């Protein structure tokens, strides 16, 4: 822990020395005493953690010294310890930014002790929050969190880069388990809003009769049980980001209210008249096809266009080729590290089994599969029989899901192999034993 530096400015040598000794009883404090305003200001550059300031100094008033401290660094807390018992003086000093004010009397020893402890606690909490924010920021450096080298995921990286540069509304679409929430966090924690809150709401998880009060808050007495005012998630997000997950599940009536809030950029808490400004950025996510939902009349068209903004459509894992293996190895390492297990490799057969599976649950499913595989594997390498798949393999699924012509099947097979081999045409041509020019031609004619 850093030294907590207390500077005491007190013109009475006896009183100052007494205070210095009293405060020094806490071994975590380093205490220095100054008898004049000038002497103290000459040492202000040494950045005290807190200043105990006598209001009446021989060379300048406490108010002047306070103003100079604030001009230098308004974050330095100043406790005024004064012989003045004048309320207006105290009010004035507190208005000027003094952290605390008390009169020299027999309670001084306890009051200064408590005040310093509170300040130290607050500073420690602030430091803790800063370091947690830094840690979260590092955690969500998107290269660290969204793993992959496939062309599909590289495109996602480039869209995230664009999203973090502005406050544009972002809509994240993709099948369940593709990592929509991680993309939302990656955008927030890499954007200028990173120091403000990231508030997530899973729309489908909140009963429709509660969602309005959850999102916009409520006033005391707004309904039975509303015993106090409660701020909503939009207010809580402040200048940060509000992430509305599974927006496609939102009730029609709530869609109207959300649209109004997004258009007006202000809201009223339920049962209240006070207008609250909305300053947060909105990111939404859904695994539904919202355009289809609009066509079916399930989702309001005006809200759809308001929310669409920059669309990031996450590819399903089965379309990410070798990312499957890259992610599998990442999950093996992470799980082994968390559980103090020796690192395991993936056998060739296991790799093939994974590459031939269609992962309906996407990355989330792969993670669960690999964690179980690490537990099940008895040897250094994870074998194919250590891998339990929950649905049929892709080879059975992706061709036979729907009936097709021979030409259609051919295109599906080539497309599948291209995705699997990161669009490496030479390799695919070799594997399928066809001419590379056939693939080039089909790509040129946009048949694939």
């Amino acid at each position: 822990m850093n030294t907590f530096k207390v500077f005491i400015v007190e013109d009475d040598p006896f009183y100052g020395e007494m205070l210095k000794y009293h405060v020094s009883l806490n071994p975590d404090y380093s205490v220095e005493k100054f008898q004049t305003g000038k002497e103290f200001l000459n040492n202000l550059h040494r950045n005290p953690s807190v200043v105990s300031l006598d209001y009446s100094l021989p060379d300048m008033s406490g108010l002047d010294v306070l103003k100079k401290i604030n001009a230098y660094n308004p974050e330095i807390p100043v406790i005024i310890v004064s012989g003045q018992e004048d309320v207006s003086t105290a009010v004035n000093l507190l208005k000027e930014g003094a952290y605390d004010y008390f009169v020299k009397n027999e309670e001084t020893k306890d009051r200064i002790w408590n005040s310093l402890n509170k300040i130290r606690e607050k500073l420690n909490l602030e430091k803790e929050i800063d370091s947690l924010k830094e840690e979260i920021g590092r955690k969500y450096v998107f290269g660290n969190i969204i793993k992959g080298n496939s062309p599909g995921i590289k495109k996602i990286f480039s869209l995230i880069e664009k999203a973090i540069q502005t406050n544009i509304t972002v809509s994240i679409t993709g099948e369940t388990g593709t990592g929509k929430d991680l993309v939302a966090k990656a955008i927030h924690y890499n954007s200028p809003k990173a120091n403000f809150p990231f508030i997530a709401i899973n729309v489908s998880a909140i009963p429709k009769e509660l969602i309005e009060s959850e999102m916009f808050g409520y006033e005391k007495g707004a309904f039975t049980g509303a015993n106090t005012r409660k701020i909503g998630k939009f207010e809580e997000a402040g200048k940060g980001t509000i992430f509305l997950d599974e927006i496609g599940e939102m009730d029609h009536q709530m869609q109207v209210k959300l649209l109004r809030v997004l258009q007006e950029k202000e809201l009223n808490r339920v049962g209240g008249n006070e207008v609250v400004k909305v300053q947060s950025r909105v990111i939404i996510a859904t695994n539904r096809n919202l355009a289809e939902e609009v066509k079916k009349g399930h989702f309001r068209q005006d809200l759809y266009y308001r929310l669409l903004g920059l669309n990031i459509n996450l590819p399903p894992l089965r379309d990410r080729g070798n990312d499957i293996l890259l992610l599998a190895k990442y999950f093996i390492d992470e799980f082994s590290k968390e559980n103090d297990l020796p690192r395991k490799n993936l056998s060739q057969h296991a790799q093939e089994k994974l590459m031939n599976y269609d992962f309906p649950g996407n990355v989330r499913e792969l993670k669960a599969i690999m964690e179980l595989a690490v537990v099940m594997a008895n040897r250094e390498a994870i074998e194919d029989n250590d891998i339990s798949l929950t649905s049929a393999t892709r080879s059975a699924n992706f061709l036979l899901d729907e009936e097709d012509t021979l030409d259609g099947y051919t295109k599906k097979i080539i497309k599948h192999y291209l995705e699997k081999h990161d669009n490496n045409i030479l390799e695919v041509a070799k594997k399928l034993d066809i001419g590379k020019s056939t693939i080039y031609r089909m790509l040129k004619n946009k048949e694939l």
Partner: protein
Amino acid sequence: MTPKSEKLYSLAYLSEVIGDDTDVLNDLMKIFVDNTPNDLNDLNQAFQAGDLEKFAALAHKMKSSLATLRIDTLREIMLSIDKPYKAIEIKDQLPGIVAKINATLEVVFKQIKNDFKL
């Protein structure tokens, strides 16, 4: 004249603040008897010069130390003169007040020097 046996000061509060560290107590009492006479001298000079602003400022400065040592006979007196407007209100009584301060502190200084072998 104060009877010789009556202590005009008390260490009760100071001991609460600093605990039972006698070295610190000695140091503090030395600081008090080294510095307060200078303040008292300045107070007398300001009074003689009719500079009630400086007079009140010095009274204000001294009152915290005197209260810490629980010099009760001066507590109300110091409070009555710690602002220029207060001193002006009782201007006629100031000669008596200043004499009382001098006399009391003279005894306090002697008692402390004697008690702490200073």
